[in-house]
């Protein structure tokens, strides 16, 4: 029944589209303003090789411009130290940071286990019903965009969808080598995957709103604090 009515509506809509387009053919021929489709290749710049250090600096500058925190480190043990400092600092604030959730990347779990802080609860990729009970979510970011200070979260690579969203604090670890210059480069990379990932999220700073008298308020529904630890991996 519903199947048939859905098919009927679909047919009716397509018929209406084709009918309308056919009716406008004559008029379209006279329409001088009609533009013609641009080729996608024309505006997708090829991956220009940038100097990693300058990309990292640009990323940091743009992330801080949208109220995110950026810590640049050089080795894996620096990452552990940075995590310690962030969590320790937060534990002195109303955000408490005693209940910590991480994505299901085994490396993240190993790193966080090395962090020497007092924690009440620790969980790997909690479910939708559990995730509300955490103060901090720690994930990887699969890429970064320097010119906007943006993180690319690809949930096919690790379970980061809820951990990066629901806790009031999100800490992301980003490898310097996966920072690209432009949005276009990041999109091109995402498109190259054999199959586009089911859920990709671009994150630029903490959650914000200006819905009340245009006054900026940070932290509405998403994280109130965003920390990005950029690892230059100099030990390798």
């Amino acid at each position, binding site marked *: 029944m*519903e199947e048939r009515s859905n098919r009927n509506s679909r047919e009716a809509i397509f018929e209406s589209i084709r009918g309308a387009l056919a009716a406008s053919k004559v008029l379209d021929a006279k329409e001088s303003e009609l533009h013609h489709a641009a080729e*996608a290749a024309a505006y997708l710049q090829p991956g220009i090789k940038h100097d990693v250090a300058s990309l990292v600096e640009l990323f940091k500058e743009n992330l801080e411009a949208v109220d995110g925190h950026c810590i640049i480190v050089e080795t894996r043990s620096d990452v552990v130290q940075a995590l310690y400092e962030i969590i320790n600092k937060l534990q002195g604030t109303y955000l408490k940071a005693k209940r910590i959730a991480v994505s299901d990347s085994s490396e993240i779990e190993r790193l966080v286990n090395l962090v020497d802080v007092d924690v009440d609860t620790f969980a790997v990729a909690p479910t939708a019903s559990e995730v509300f009970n955490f103060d901090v979510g720690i994930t990887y970011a699969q890429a970064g965009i320097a010119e906007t200070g943006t993180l690319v979260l690809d*949930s096919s690579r690790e379970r980061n969808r809820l951990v990066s969203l629901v806790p009031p604090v999100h800490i992301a670890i980003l490898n310097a080598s996966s920072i690209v210059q432009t949005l276009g480069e990041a999109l091109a990379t995402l498109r190259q995957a054999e199959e586009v990932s089911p859920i990709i999220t*671009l994150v630029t700073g903490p959650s914000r*709103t200006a819905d*009340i008298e245009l006054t900026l308020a940070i932290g509405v529904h998403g994280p109130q604090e965003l920390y990005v630890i950029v690892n230059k991996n100099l030990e390798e």
Partner: protein
Amino acid sequence: MNHVTSETFDENAKAALADSQLRGALRNATSLFGKRRLAAAQGLTNWEDLRTQARAIKDDVLLHLDQYLENFVSQAEARGAKFHWARDGAEANAIICRLAAERNARSIVKSKSMTTEETHLNVALEAAGIQVIETDLGEYIIQLAEETPSHIIVPAIHKTKRQIAELFTQELGIPPTDDVAKLTSTARATLRDRFAAADIGISGVNFGVAETGTIVILENEGNIRLTTSLPRFHIAVMGIEKVVPRFADLDIFLKLLPRSGTGQRLTTYQSFITGTKQNAFDDGPEELHVVMLDNGRSRMLAHPVTRQSLACIRCGACLNACPVYQQIGGHAYGSVYPGPIGAVITPQLMGLEKTQQLPYASSLCGACREVCPVKIDIPRLLLHLRGEITEKSSPEVQQAKGRTMERFAFKMWRLMMLRPWAYNLSARVGRLFQGLVVKDGKIGRVKSFVGPLAAWTSGRDLRPLDQKSFRDKWASDQGKS
């Protein structure tokens, strides 16, 4: 300002003009967004090229909409999305109510979607006994106050923080405060429980990518991510015109939309959703349903001028730039889509009978066309619709107040402009008699005038005709040389 309709636009506008608090809020908002948009556009060296490319892509999509829709749907279906087709708003609402009933849903969270405002989905869901909560902060405020949005991007632009604080005290029981951060955190805390309890999340769609079947949604607050990630079922409502051909095209639209809307280089979040999750244990909903809404859109394809309306990406830049919107705000338009783009979309969606004042709610200054990121020629559309009203619509519309007189006046004007002797004669007669109405070197409000002439002079001052016409001067100068 509740329950105003487009039919009473002239009265709505007068009421809005008398509301000094509203006008103050509008002045702040529209000038701030205008400045931010300009700065953001100037931050890119190729802004004009981007606009041209975006429009070219939209034109290509609209001219082959059937093919691109088929591609988009088959790609998304292959990834697990289910599609539902709605010829009009009522059909869309019925589909969503049925999906909710089949899943025994009692509570729904919703993120901002102009398309569901267009179909009045919330009314339908509530009538079906399903609780629906708006989660965008501005929309949430509007829902608590039982009002409608007055701006596409900032729905509660017309409300002061004091009004919002009173509303929260009354509805949510918080102590009185005028601290915006506190109001925001109150909404966050209240809505968290709703998100946790919701069975279904309903969102809109900014772009649907034909080559991959991906749905793209932009936001700043995070409520769209929550709406589309937490509940077991996600329903996305999408206008059939929202398709773009290639994933790479998003580069252009993601540059244009945030900059035009709020002056941001990127909004805080962009969600790219391609079908459903791959493993049962992954985060995210089990089902993705996409409701494709026509509701008068396919009709607009039938003429190159009206087809432009479908290129709109709902950024709101034309609202902020419009001298009419700046004075009266969104409610006066009496429909979901206000401002210049509303003045052209609403009559096409709802029919000219009930909306015939809207195409006249413009001075045709062209500011909207200047700022439009997809170069929609809104003044041309307004003129096209005015033409439809005077030439093609039903006798009832044609003979409405003022239209007969208008047609007569333009007939006389045409007669005169086509005949030099008639033009000269009328100028001479005018020069002879204007002394009766000129005061202090101008023609101000003339009390003895009645009808349209009185309306004309009560609103503006006119310069009197020069004692010597250009033609006379030309003739005498020629004589000298």
